[in-house]
């Protein structure tokens, strides 16, 4: 009897779930609810904010918020074409764009807001690789890029590889390959290095991956958000932030909040660099 009732309930649930699944077609080319920001002025006519002065007081640290002067040519082209720049934030679960009313202010939502504050019109899409490492991660990223065709990839790279204890040199080789592929397909890139974790500050496996992200970004002339060093500065300034309190790690939360600000600055700087490199007006 119990089994009969359970089977009936399950059948009803299955029908509802199947209906829910089938009517919700998530076409990769057109991601659900793109969060384009509409500005009053046409994109070609607004002026970009200058850069680092947009940092909030809490996020101002001794370390440089980002490294590199690489021009973001595809983003600039999008703005000149008077369309929102399509940006994919790719990485761990904190890169996921929860909906706007979510209690967590996810990294892509924060970044989108910060770019809007800088006068940029963007379409922000969050994607996670949820544990994928090495070749699998590279393959999944490429497939996502082919489907989404972004102007800019903001890639939080290295965390999953560091967790899985992937050899730092192997990691660097794969990163070079993938960055080469992205460049060949005119996708601009901003790298975000792994976050600072006090427990791992002397762990060579972890810091080795962080160092390789910096080395490859420098070698490939890619903009890199200096999250690790910035968070280390924050940790030194606020030792209590490294401890769990109220079910949250404040340092980690602030790491994402500040990384969004640093990334927005890096993107603005990259557009300015593109203007300088190619001549012409600021979009």
């Amino acid at each position, binding site marked *: 009897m119990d*089994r009969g009732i*359970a*089977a009936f309930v*399950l059948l009803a649930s*299955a029908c509802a*779930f*199947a209906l829910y*699944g089938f009517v*919700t*077609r*998530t*076409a*990769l*080319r057109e*991601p*659900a609810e793109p969060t384009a920001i509409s500005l009053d002025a046409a994109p070609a006519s607004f002026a970009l904010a200058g850069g680092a002065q947009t940092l909030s007081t809490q996020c101002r640290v001794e370390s440089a918020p980002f490294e590199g002067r690489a021009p973001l040519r595809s983003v600039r082209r999008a703005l000149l074409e008077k369309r929102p720049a399509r940006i994919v934030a790719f990485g*761990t*679960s*904190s890169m*996921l*764009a*929860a*909906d706007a009313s*979510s*209690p*967590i202010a996810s990294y892509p939502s924060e970044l989108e807001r910060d770019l809007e504050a800088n006068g940029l019109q963007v379409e922000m*899409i*969050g*994607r*996670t690789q*949820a*544990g*994928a*490492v*090495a*070749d699998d991660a590279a*393959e999944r990223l*490429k*497939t996502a890029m*082919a*489907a989404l065709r972004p102007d800019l990839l903001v890639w939080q790279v290295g*965390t999953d590889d560091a*967790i*899985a*204890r*992937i050899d730092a040199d192997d990691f660097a080789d794969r990163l070079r390959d993938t960055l080469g*592929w992205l460049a060949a397909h005119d996708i601009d890139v901003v790298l975000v290095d792994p*976050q600072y*974790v006090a*427990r*791992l500050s002397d762990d060579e*496996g972890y810091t080795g991956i962080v160092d390789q992200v910096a080395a490859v970004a420098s070698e490939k002339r890619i903009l890199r958000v200096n999250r690790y060093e910035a968070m280390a500065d924050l940790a030194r300034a606020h030792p209590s932030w*490294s*401890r*769990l309190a109220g*079910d*949250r*790690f404040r*340092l*980690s939360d602030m790491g994402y909040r500040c990384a969004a600000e640093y990334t927005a600055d890096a993107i603005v700087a990259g557009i300015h660099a593109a203007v300088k490199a190619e001549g012409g007006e600021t979009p």
Partner: protein
Amino acid sequence: MRAPNAIDFWRGVALVMIFINHVPGMVYSQLTLRDYAISDAAELFVFLAGCSLAFVAAGKAGPKPAGQVVGRLLWRAFEIWRAQIVVISVAVAMLGAGALYFNDPLLLEWHGAKPAFSDTARASIGLVLLTYQIGYFNILPLYVVLLLLALVFVVIARRSLAAALAASFALYAATLTWQLQLPSWPAQGAWFFNPLSWQLLVVLGFAVITLQQKHPTMWQAAVRRLWPVSVVVVAIGAVVVWIEYRPDPMAVPDPRFFFLFDKQFLSPVRILNMAALAIAFYPLFPILARAMAPLVRYCSSLGRNSLAVFCVASLLALAGQIARYVGEPGFLLDTGIVIVGLVALRVTAWIAELQPSSS
């Protein structure tokens, strides 16, 4: 308890490989299928689930009553849904415990776990609806939907196996062409394993065993004829993996998932490789059963209790990942993880078989 058979044995092999592959970075992953074939243990596991389905649908004196088959599949889907809720809850608890004990925020973000801690209300709903999955805990949700889809195909197959295959192929082709997916929620994106395309592998496994039951002589002859070709396909697959060739997703024509090696959508080359592996290794089981009886008994015991073993394997793999993350990774630790895992999986199977109705 049934005697060792080929399906249970290979399912046990797949479970061992899934356990090892779910601890990324381990040296022992070089011994698993993914390093020698385009498809991997997940395809093998799902294909064998389809094979088992044929035995669920068929009785000794003809097909079982439709109501009985549908009821059995619905109940099985419910059992797997229940297992997923338990396993993912334990996994989230393990990550929470690790974060507290080691004072490490990264553990709260592993494999997409962050919504469970930071967006708990939505994540709880998504967990029950199976739209919230975390990395390495996404096979059971696939299974639930596959069983529900299989209901339809098994019912169609009672009238015509060809019609069931045609319907399955049609859904597969439509899924790849229009990139149909089941959505993730509360996070953006889609399911890691797309059930709308993976269902074809289940139906193929079902069809293979159904044909073997109906036409054993013709079936054996077909396998014999296809064996040399399959060995060549398996060898080509191994070379492709060895030279690390992957099609460029930007370079292939649309609809691109037909031409990629994509796991989410189960691109055709992965199915072809899986079919070739099944045929190429088909004659191996009787040989192993004679030459390596203890190994066959071990793997078959895991395969006979696949749900319980899979759940424990998933959690052991997560424990292994945490051990490698907080400990000193190396050959000794990897060896310890594998040995503890293999023993624990056998103990799980043993306990499961003590129960009145083991899975």
